[in-house]
């Protein structure tokens, strides 16, 4: 468990992070969201002591981080820096293997791990292992940066906008992979993003920052249902975009042949209504009707596909 205890960072006269306290359970994902300059990066960097707090304390499993030598603390904590920060003079393999090398893993074990991670992030090891960072695209550099943070299978991972440079498709896949890795290894992840949608889909908890203050810290459902301030409500607003989109499309556009149980829905109804009906009655498909007669069905899967296509 990570306990952040009234931590503050002051630059000049400005509090970049202002008396933030939170508790992160072991094995959970916490997404820190907020607008640019709200102090997300600063908060994250105080956890592995890249910044020393002006006041306050961070405890990991009860031990204060200030009682450990900073570089030894950091070897135990995976860190994916905003903007990748790869070593330009080292190959992809050496970049990813940097921490295992520091931890004195055997060469074979490091190589195996490097290939495993490259494959996980859809980069062919044979092709990419020996390239230099300058020979990669922005998205590939970013994935290598995340792979480097994961390499030693740390219990705690700090990730600063790890998926910022990825296109939506790869981004979604990378998010899924991360969630999968996290569940498999039970690692604790703190992830910074300014995308509320990403925060809500990935986080077990979402921490919303505004002007250095932690304005709400709660599970995603609660953030959506009961935003603590107007600012949070505004940030959540973005997440509703797919729903708004669905309300503009009628059921007739995605009718498919087949059967479905239960009460039908007129084909002129919107997909948002259809989605709502599915969720409400716990069905995966609904009969679609035209002037009272069943003409086919509409499935949850098709609705989802439609919502996702426009994201």
């Amino acid at each position, binding site marked *: 468990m990570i306990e952040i205890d009234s931590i503050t960072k002051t630059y000049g006269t400005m509090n970049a992070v202002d008396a933030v306290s939170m508790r992160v359970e072991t094995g959970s994902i916490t997404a820190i969201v907020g607008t640019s300059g709200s102090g997300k990066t600063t908060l994250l960097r105080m956890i592995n002591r890249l910044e020393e707090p002006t006041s306050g304390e961070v405890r990991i499993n009860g031990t204060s981080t200030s009682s450990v030598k900073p570089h030894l603390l950091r*070897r135990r904590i995976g860190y994916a820096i905003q903007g990748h*920060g790869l070593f330009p003079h080292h190959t992809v393999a050496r970049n990813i293997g940097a921490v295992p090398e520091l931890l004195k893993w055997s060469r074979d074990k490091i190589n195996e791990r490097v290939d495993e991670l490259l494959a996980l992030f859809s980069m062919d090891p044979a092709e990419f292992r020996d390239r230099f960072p*300058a020979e990669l695209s922005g998205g590939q550099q970013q994935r290598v940066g995340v792979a480097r943070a994961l390499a030693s299978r740390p219990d705690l991972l700090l990730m600063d906008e790890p998926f910022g440079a990825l296109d939506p498709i790869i981004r979604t896949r990378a998010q899924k992979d991360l969630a999968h890795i996290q569940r498999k290894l039970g690692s604790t992840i703190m992830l910074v993003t300014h995308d509320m949608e990403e925060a809500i889909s990935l986080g077990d908890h979402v921490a919303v920052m505004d002007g250095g203050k932690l304005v709400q810290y709660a599970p995603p459902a609660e953030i959506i249902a009961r935003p603590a301030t107007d600012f949070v409500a505004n940030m959540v607003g973005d997440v509703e975009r797919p729903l708004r989109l669905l309300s503009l499309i009628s059921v007739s556009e995605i009718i498919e042949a087949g059967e479905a149980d239960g009460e039908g829905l007129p084909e002129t109804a919107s997909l948002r209504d259809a989605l709502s009906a599915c969720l409400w009655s716990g069905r995966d498909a609904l009969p679609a009707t035209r002037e009272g007669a069943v003409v086919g069905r509409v499935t949850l899967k098709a609705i989802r596909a439609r919502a996702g296509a426009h994201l």
Partner: protein
Amino acid sequence: MKTGRILRSVLIALLLALVLRPDWFVPIFAPFAPDGGPVIYQRASMLSLSLSHLGIVTLASAAATIVAVALAILVTRPAGAAFRPLSRTITNMGQTFPPVAVLALAVPALGFGAGPTLVALFLYGLLPIFENAVTALTSLPRATTQAARGIGLSRLQRLLRVELPLALPVTLTGIRLSIVIGLGTATIGSTVAARTLGEVIIAGLLTNNTAYVLQGGLIVGLFAVLIYDALVQLELYLTGRMGG
């Protein structure tokens, strides 16, 4: 690129000929020699003068590199930052001192021979290397140095594995400048009896023999151009690998 390679080979061949077979150039230099006077310098072999010349420059530049880089590392650490202005002043003074004055001052202490020349070249070489190394070490990409801290490299590991390798190309530029300055400056070392190619030039000046001056000057110039070129290629190779 291709013409560059041809030109380079021609210059290397010319230099080798001038150093190893100076007699071949009698017809070319003859018009510049005084009537009936010697055309080619005979009191020492060009090869031994060249080797001694290069040796002095290499030694002085190596010492300057070690001292300047060590100084640059020191003043770019948080604890040494206070010394940066002072060390700048010192290295700058090394450069503003005319080399002839350094020679004159060093002779009483070190006697005639290579000593005073080594001191002058060393002082002269410090500044460009120091300035470039400091610039390189203070302008490293921030995300990279932060990542180096973030993954848990110790201070020494950061210096050796990340900062110095990344600062190498720019530092090399400083070393290159210092070597080329040294190659030219070493010639005046012969006024205080250092064995350099300057001996040929000075002999020419004293006896009014332009052929000697040409011979010595050409060899020094060719060494400077070719060594400069080789170091540029090395820098290009290093920066190319890091993607500029």
